Every structure is written in C-alpha cells, then in structure tokens.
C-alpha cells in the first residue's frame, strides 16, 4: 500500500477527482493548503501600502492505494492536473504499512 500526496491547483480538483473516479479510485482526502514554491504569490494593497502575500492557495489530495494502482493514479493526476504553467504542483509517494476501516474493522487493501 502506498500513499500518494498530490499538491494541485484548486480549480483542478473537480477534474482530477472525476478522472480518478473513472479508474476506480473512490477514496480521497482533500486539504486546503498554502504553497510556497516557484509560483509567485500576489501583492495586496492596504491604504496605499503594498504587501507581498507569498503563499499560493493549493489543494492537497491524499490517496491510499494498493501498489499496483499507483502508476495509473500518477498518470491520471499528471494528466488532469496539468496546465503547463508554473505551480501545477507535485506528487509524492510514500509507503503505508496498514489501513483500517473504522466502520467494519477491515484491514489492509480491503479497507481502502
């Protein structure tokens, strides 16, 4: 089992979610985050004073999936989250040791 964390542009969430659905991924946990990276933030004005706001609103997806699903998930995210502009985001993969479904107590891949 692996965990995929993808940082994407917020307005791409709907697309990505739909494409993931199509390949059978139904469990996703989403967090609103702020990103610092190459993509620059914006400036804001307050009574003539200019302030840099460095962070960029981003959306983080977390998906726990079985090892064999990983390549296709990555492919789908790469495609559907891409705009070609700076700030499209990252995908990180790490390993997960166990998963448990609270409702049923199921463990392992059947829990995800």
């Amino acid at each position, binding site marked *: 089992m692996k965990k995929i964390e993808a940082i994407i542009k917020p307005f791409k969430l709907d697309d990505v979610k739909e494409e993931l659905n199509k390949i059978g991924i139904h469990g996703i946990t989403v967090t609103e985050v702020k990103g610092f990276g190459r993509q620059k933030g914006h400036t804001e*004005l*307050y*009574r*003539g*004073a*200019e*302030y*840099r706001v460095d962070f960029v609103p981003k959306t983080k997806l977390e998906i726990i999936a079985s090892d064999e699903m990983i390549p296709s998930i990555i492919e789908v995210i790469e495609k559907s989250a891409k705009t070609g502009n700076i700030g499209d985001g990252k995908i990180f993969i790490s390993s997960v040791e166990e998963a448990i479904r609270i409702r049923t107590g199921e463990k392992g891949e059947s829990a995800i």
Partner: protein
Amino acid sequence: MNKINRILTVLGGLFLVLFSWVTPVFAAAAKTPKFVPGNIAWVLASTALVLIMTPALGFYYGGMVRKKNVLNTISLSFITICTVSVVWILWDYSMAFGPDAFLGIIGNLKYLGLAAMGVNQHSRYDGTIPSFIYVMFQLMFAIITVALISGSLVERIKFSSWVVFTIIWVTIVYAPVAQSVWGIGGLFQKMGALDFAGGTVVHINSGVAGLAGALVLGKRKGYMKENIVQPNQLAYTILGGALLWFGWFGFNAGSALEASGLAASAFLVTNTATAAAAISWMLAEWIHSGKPTTLGMISGAVAGLVAITPASGFVNPLAAIVIGLVVGVLCYSMVVFVKPKLGYDDSLDAFNVHAIGGAWGALATGLFADPLINPAGRGLFYGNPHQVVIQLITILSVAGYSFVMSFIIFTLIDKFMGLRVSKEQEAMGLDITQHEESGYNL
C-alpha cells in the same frame, strides 16, 4: 345701529375665539416658538441616524484589524455608546450645553441628571423642538467623538482602561470643547467660529486625542517590520462605511435642527463632498499604487464626510465638490507619506483622517461659506477674510487643548492601571484575552 351692533357682537365673539387661539402663536413667536412636529420628526429621525453611526464605526474599524481582534475593536465603539449615554444624562450634557458657567468654556450644573428639565420644555438651542430631543441629538455626537479615538488605539489598548478613559475624556475634554464652540455664549461661538456639525468639536478633537493616545501607547508589535495588516473581513468595513454615510445625513442635515431648505442643503453637500472624496482618494491610490481599492473608496468617503461636516450648513454644491476632491488626496497623502515618515502608529488612521480632514473642513468653511446658502456664514471667497482667521484660531485651540489634555489623561491612566495589554496578550489577540471570546467559529 342694531344691525351694526349685532354684526359687531358676532364679530367680537368670533374674534375672541380666534384670538384665544391665535395669541399663543404670537406670544410664542415672540418668546419661545411653538413646537413644530415636522422639525421634531426630523430631529428624532436624525438622532436615530446618528446613533447607528457608532456601531457602524465599530464595523468600519472592525473589518480592518486582524481576526484575533475583531470583537474587541467593535466593542470599543459599542461600550462607548453605553458609558457616554449614562454620563451624558448624569452630568455631561449640563457641562457641555447648560448655561455657561465660566468664560464660555463650561456649562453649569443646572441640568444634572436632567432633573430640572420638563418633558415639554423648549430647547434653548431651537425652540421648535423639545429639550429632551436636543439632549439626545447632542449625546450621539459625544458618543461618536469618543468612539472615533479608538481607531488610533486598537489591537493593543486594555479594555478596562478604555472604559475608564471614555468617562474621563468626555467629561473634561469633550464638554468644554462643545460648550466653547457650540454653547450659547461659548468662547469661539462668540468669536463667530463656524462649525455646522462638528469639524472641530468632533473630528479634530477626536483625531488629535487619537494621536496622543497612539504616542502614549506606542506602536503595535511588528509595526512597519512585518505585515501586521490582514484585514479580517473588508466587507465589514464597507458595511460600516455605508452605514456611516447613511447616518451622517442625520449628523449634518439634522444639525439644522429643523426640516427646512437649510437641512436639504446640508444633506446635498454632504452627499456630494463624500462622493467626490471617495473618487479623489480612489484616483490618488490608482495613480500612486496602481489599483483602485475598495478600502480606498470607503476611506475616501469617510474623509469626505469628515471634511464637509463643519461646512455642511454653509457651502454650496460646487464648493462641496472642491472640498471633497481636496480631502481625498490630502488624507491619502497623510496615510501614505506622512505617517510612515513620522512613524506614529495611528492604527486605523483616526488622526490622519479625522483630525486632518476635519481641519481642512473647518478651514474650508472659512473659505467657501456662502451667505446665499446661510446668511450666518460668509467666507473668504465671499469677501470675508476675517472668517479664515477665526477658523484657524478655533482649529488650533481645539487641537491644542485636546492634545494636551488627552496626553495627560492617557498618561495618568497608564500610570494607575496600565494602558496597554501585555506582549503575550497582544500576540494572542484581544478577543480572547480581553473578552474570552473569538470572532469566528467557521
């Protein structure tokens, strides 16, 4: 003769009936005029309009601060309504508007607790309305004057100290200034100072007190070092600004104390100067910083309301446009150039907008007062340069008095009970530390 006699008798009888009805009118006209329901209706409505200005100010200020201070900022305005309302009835109205007790600067204590004031007593200040409503109308001015000061102090002043401050300041600063500018026999009143609705009494007075407070308090942690400007919800500021504009019609047009052409004129120039100032501030910012901000528009509108206040019963519509255009650029410059240079932390610009805008308005009254609008005022451009001198004397005297007294009051409060919250409290925010509440659970 019989016929004549009969006719005369009838006439006489009718006359008596008529006379008994007409007489009081004349008598009243000679001494106190009759109550005029239309005037009462307008001043009652105006008083309600001015009341809403203080919570509106709370929202205007409250939207600009960090979210951890939103409730505290609004409540500084709110509690002021409460403390000043009670103090006003008990002693302060009498000191501010009672018969002069001393040199035209302080009223006597005739109206302590309003005990000596009858329900149908005609106001000394306009006999067509009852005294009670004049007391209320003026109360609303006193409230907002004190509340305005908080704009220089937010995000760091102790709530308890603010409560104490409001009671002291409205007594020993507001009352004498009101009496001397507006009181019958007041010092500047006798000199011929023109202040229709409070350029000096309200705006210079409060703005300068705000500066004194900001200096005694010191700067907020991180001021000019990091970005401590994160307005939590600017729509509050717009809401507050809009309600201020709305209420200000009561402030200025209500100051005519009657439903008349003069009230209409005050209404018109108020709206006009406000609009012009909003545009002027917006354009100044657009040119200087590259974007027209909503905060800029609303700040400009408030500056315009401030500047037209003393002039509202004296100037014509075109002068109002000029007054508005000037004040927008002027206050923007204060905020953008002067404040950072001098380094005082006038958090929400009570000084920069109210003292400076009010001073410009008071001066402009001396320039533009048009006797065709109001025979009581004639400015420089209508041949009376002397008026400018009177205005300057009044501006400087009020500003000087307010600054010195306010500085002393703030310093004494600081000595006796501490004026500023602790560093940890400032960091945690005043909502939690002063009130154990938080603004949002979203």
